[in-house]
């Protein structure tokens, strides 16, 4: 008996769905699995989930995505810092912002490149070390405002989390 075309189509698409579905949730699974092992699970899952690369990424690539976030965010924060410094009323605020500019500039020029190289080439301990250093640099920037909340505290918070998560992901690969 000849099978009706519609049944053939149905069974074919059923098989397709069954084979594809596990992969679709597997990638979200990897993001969740990885983020649970970082200090900022929710932040990590949100930041990675938003990036289209995360659906097919392995752990190493998730780390690279996070380092990209550290870099991109540092660059945009630098622009913000320069703008705020131009408007700053207090010389102390100006000074603190200059110090932050140094910290963020340092992250972009000296901490991001070796972290990317480390993750790409498989000597992961350097990404752990340099992303930790980035966390410290951000904390120094925030601390430069003498204990009160800085005008860039939201940016610092994001960068702190992004760098800490990047370091933790690299640590999972050791």
């Amino acid at each position, binding site marked *: 008996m000849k099978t009706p075309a519609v049944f053939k189509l149905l069974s074919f698409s059923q098989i397709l769905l069954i084979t594809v579905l596990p992969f679709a949730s597997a990638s979200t699974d*990897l993001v969740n699995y990885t983020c649970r092992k970082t200090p900022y699970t929710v932040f990590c899952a949100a930041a990675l989930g938003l990036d289209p690369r995360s659906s097919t990424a392995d752990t190493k690539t998730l780390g690279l995505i996070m380092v990209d976030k550290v870099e991109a965010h540092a660059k945009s924060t630098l622009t913000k810092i320069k703008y705020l410094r131009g408007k700053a009323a207090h010389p102390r605020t100006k000074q603190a912002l200059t110090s932050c500019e140094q910290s963020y500039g340092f992250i972009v020029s000296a901490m991001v490149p070796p972290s990317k190289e*480390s993750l790409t080439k*498989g*000597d992961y301990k350097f990404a752990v070390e*340099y992303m930790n250093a980035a966390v*410290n640099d951000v*904390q120094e920037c925030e601390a430069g405002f003498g204990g009160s909340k800085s005008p860039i505290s939201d940016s610092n918070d994001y960068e702190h989390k992004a760098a800490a998560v990047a370091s*933790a992901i690299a640590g999972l690969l050791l």
Partner: protein
Amino acid sequence: MAEPYPSRSPVDQEDPGYAPLAGGEEPRDHRRPIRAILAVGLSVLLVVGIVIGFSTDTSPDVCAEVNSARLEPFLLGGAGQRSVPVKTVVRPVPRGVNEGVSAKSNRVFAGANLRGFPWNNSMLSWQRTAYHFQPEKNWMNDPNGPMYYKGWYHFFYQYNPDAAVWGNIVWGHAVSEDLIHWLYLPLAMVADQWYDINGVWSGSATVLPDGQVMMLYTGSSNESQQLQNLAYPANLSDPLLIDWVKHPGNPILAPPQCIDKLDFRDPTTAWYTSGGKWRFAVGAKINKTGVSFVYETEDFKSYKLLPGLLHAVPGTGMWECVDFFPVSDDGLDTSVNGPGVKHVMKVSLDDDRHDYYAIGTYNEEANTWVPDSPEIDVGIGIRYDYGIFYASKTFYDQNKSRRILWGWITESDSEYADVQKGWASLQALPRTIVLDTKTGSNLLQWPVEEVDSLRLSSKEFDSVEVEAGTVVPLDVETATQVDIVAEFELDKQALEAAPEADADYVCSASGGASQRSALGPFGLLVLADDDLSEQTPVYFYVVKGPNGTLKTSICTDQSRSSVATDVHKQVYGSFVPVLEGEKLSLRILVDHSIVETFAQGGRSCITARVYPTKAIYGAARVFLFNNATEANVKASLKIWQMNSAFIRPYSPQ
């Protein structure tokens, strides 16, 4: 999580040829007898099977063994615990490192002022050493290919020509006639081939009996794969071995199929077997088990992966910079073997950035090495050095028949300061390595005797009484480049009267030199200023155990080494065996921002980096101290001023 393996690389030598099976299609003519079909089918299968059998590489597939039950005992416990060593061997891991937080960030939780220290050029330039190997600028890491050749000691090193942070790695090169006075040569190898374009990583030298030199090394390829390669001197009659040639047949090895392409590196020096072949090891990991593969070659042209693993230890993670060599109370050539010869297995653990070794027995025929004491197996037991010391490598010095150890000493200040000062990392002083025949269960390390040639004027202090709770200044000139040899004796009455301690002392978990008890701490304060606002204590700490046995620890305390907040503030150290009748002895080499300590003739070693801001130049002093509450201590010591090694670029006379 296992990742799918991409298609075979052209250099993969382990894959058997694969011939598709000729399957029989269902015959449409029902009149052909089934038996005939079966007969034809089976004989086709037989023929194909024979063809496959003869065409494939007949050497056993290590990966098949890895996946089978044969190697399971080695590999079980993938993500699991390291077994806790029975003996009190200390593995100080900075709190928080396991959580992915840098040891330096503990300063953040110290509250108060979190700003980085305002380093000035005077402070930063003081940090450069006078007699330790370091390049003129930029970043250095692993020692590579050390060897002695035609009157020169050669030293190569991982180097970043562009920055004071890791990256863009190539091979630096320096030579010396005495392991001390180094002369910089041009870069030996740069990243100029597809198989090492992303990094010319670590490797080792094998000097053949006929004078050829085989340099095996890891390359990070254009696809970021880790591949093993061979290089050799362009001109063997050039004693400086300035130019190097990469073997046209590179790469010689790709990772075995069961190994991730990013977990396969650092080939060792080769050893010559009784079967007339050369063998060398390469470290890797399978899940969380650190492993070592062994390759065999006759001519350094074709290579065979031997079945089995030289050794594996679950839970230790990636094995970097594997080293494998025979030991006795004297130096031994790497190829020495025989009944009663002990072999050392050493690994650098990526997980905690420490170097571990164990002593055991090598079975050449079975290609295995077994530790004497499995509870202190490699990676879970003894370390070469309880401070900062990684990626170390030994070589056999045929010139003076000794085995010499090199170790990479990284910075423990901030990366920001490293970039400011324009350089990062040192090498430890080269150390001779022998088996401690008195204990039989550890190695002894000692600075090579050529270090003594740097000694200038000295001052001797005999039987100085250091009462409990006192500090005694030692009148030497400035103390930034000194060699100190000291002996200590604890007051016998206090020893007898001291109560039994209720716990073992662990340097890294202690309060350092300010944590007092009946019998310790006591020792020396180096890189200390007059009012002790900055000080680096190097001390013994003695506790009484059950049955009146004494247990001694040796520690270096960084916690007050600098008022700067952006430097490590840890206490390093370990238990050190002290045998009946032995006095407590120390050798400390201070060279600006590095302090190398050797206790009990080198049974326990600690290398620390310190960055004082005030106890520098003419303000650096040395003191004896005794912070015990009960025991007085008698100290005898000699302190030498150390000359500079004048490390500089080579220039022909």
